[in-house]
């Protein structure tokens, strides 16, 4: 810098602040939103879980009473169990189907554009639409079951949607139908990023195509698979619309899920304390699942990456 004025430090600081001021102001909306709507609301929810609030918030302190109540509520235990089953099957189903779809489309097939459009369009639709369509299609009297029976299989039964033990699996089917296309799109992007010379090398080395996908390609796109899995896991935690539309949590309580449990207790059953306790449990679970991934992807120092 050129010759320093009488008081160099304050004026330089002032200049820097002046340059940064508009930018800082521009970030103010985001900062307010984060502080109030995200952090603030989250803290408030957790605080309410330690109160006896019923319809309106009350700021007393009942310790872990709501949590005790929560874990003795059959409906909540069921919802946790259901979301676990749904989560595992849904994520596995989407990953496998999405991967297979991507691999097969990658085989230089004709109508590739058309096929991609077909596999991805469900993702453009609301979960409500998906739930209602599948509810209708799986209708035992007039839907799939009747069609197959009419084809000559009178003992075929597919009344899962009204069966307490099987209804969760119908949610899985509808969910996989909606979301596999997304996984396919992510994986296809990964597959297309692989150097064509690598494929030439495998042809010379006599590696069969399926083996290339399993031993070479899959490890290469592993980070994308993990990203897809994380996105799917988040969708599992948020599962609400699909259940409301497709089964309303029924028959009985046999397709109840945590998000719906929370909503019902917060707004319909006027059980704010119980609802926020359940929300807090959901929050802790999500953070527990996310933390390893966030650590591995963003916080751990990267070694020798190209």
């Amino acid at each position, binding site marked *: 810098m050129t010759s320093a004025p009488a008081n160099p430090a304050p004026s330089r600081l002032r200049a820097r602040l002046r340059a*940064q001021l508009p*930018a800082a102001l521009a*970030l103010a*909306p985001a900062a307010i*939103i*984060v502080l109030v*709507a*995200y952090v*603030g*609301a989250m803290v408030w*929810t957790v605080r*309410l879980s330690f109160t006896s609030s019923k319809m309106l918030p009350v700021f007393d302190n009942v310790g872990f009473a709501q949590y005790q109540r929560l874990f003795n509520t059959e409906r909540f235990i069921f919802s946790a169990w259901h979301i676990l089953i749904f989560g595992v099957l849904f994520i596995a189903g989407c990953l496998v189907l999405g991967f*297979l*779809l991507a691999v*097969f489309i990658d*085989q230089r*097939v004709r109508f590739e554009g058309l096929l*991609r459009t*077909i596999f*991805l*369009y*469900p993702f*453009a*639709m*609301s*979960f*409500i*639409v998906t739930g*209602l*369509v599948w509810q*209708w*299609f799986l209708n035992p*009297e*007039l*839907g799939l079951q*009747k*069609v197959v029976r*009419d084809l000559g299989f009178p003992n075929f039964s597919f009344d899962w949607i009204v069966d307490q033990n099987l209804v969760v699996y119908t949610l899985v089917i509808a969910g996989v*139908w909606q979301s596999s296309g997304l996984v396919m*799109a*992510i994986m296809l*992007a990964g597959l297309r990023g692989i150097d064509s010379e690598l494929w030439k090398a495998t042809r010379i080395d006599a590696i069969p*195509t399926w083996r290339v996908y399993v031993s070479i390609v899959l490890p290469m796109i592993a980070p994308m698979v993990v990203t897809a899995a994380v996105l799917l896991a988040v969708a599992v935690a*948020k599962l*609400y*619309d699909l259940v*409301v*539309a497709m089964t309303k949590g029924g028959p009985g309580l046999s397709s109840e899920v945590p*998000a719906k449990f*929370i*909503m019902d207790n917060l707004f319909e059953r006027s059980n*704010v304390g119980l609802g*926020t306790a359940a*929300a*807090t449990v*959901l*929050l802790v679970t*999500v953070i527990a699942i*996310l933390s390893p991934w966030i650590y591995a992807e*963003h916080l751990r120092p990267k070694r020798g990456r190209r």
Partner: protein
Amino acid sequence: MSLALTPAGPKPQHFSVARLGVYAFLAISAAFFLIPLWVMMMTSFKTMDEIRLGHILSLPANPTLAAWFKAWSSACTGLACNGISVGFWNSVRILVPSVIVSIFVGALTGYAMSFWRVRGANALFAVLLVGAFIPYQVFLYPLVRIFSMIGLYSSISGIVVIHVIFGLPLMTLLFRNYYSSLPVELFNAARVDGAGFVGIFRHVILPMSTPIIIVAAILQVTGIWNDFILGLTFAGRTNQPMTVLLNNIVNSTQGEVEYNVNMAATVLTALVPLTVYLVSGRWFVRGIAAGAVKG
């Protein structure tokens, strides 16, 4: 095809079993994905008598638009029976301001974060991203109370603000990543020319943002139109979006279930995002790639 004993010239093409298997798998998968759409469409054109016969996959014998008219203007969506058109217009009234404001705030935030060194910007971004992963239910009740207190609850303005709030992580991610990929020389040249924060945004950055604005618009239009839970909670009884009214039509009618009307209403609700999807094609996929491949 000549039976040459000595191989010469192009190799004869054999349509192998493996290739057949690939096409078979893809065809079956395509059927799986298309059948619900087919069912939805077919049912909406049938009469209830025909539906009761239970041939859900067949074409309508006497196609009629009666169910469509009923769904649009006279289906019962709770207390009122004015059809789902009410919901359509509500959704439009929610959609337009929400998309515009959320994209604008996202662009501004992304711009401020990527070119200007503001202390704490990275931490803010990190918290924003983490917030995107947390289910709405964790934030919902306090937000309801806050909005009640400031008079935004049960109003269009309220639901718009909510969509801006919950759209901010994705929007900021898109714009921040996009702007980070622009050459910083552009920015430096404009600064040397004397432009300030707003000036650079208006004259240099914004004109270059067309691709990412398109992607953001596609994602927001689809996401907001398809939203159910936020509209249900914050929009207010007279402003319920189409998805909420659709669910009411199908799942809370008394008396006989009119499947054709239900499906017509379902198609109508799916029409807007489906059209956006079909028209935007490649941009849609680009949006997913931009959003899913974080950082």
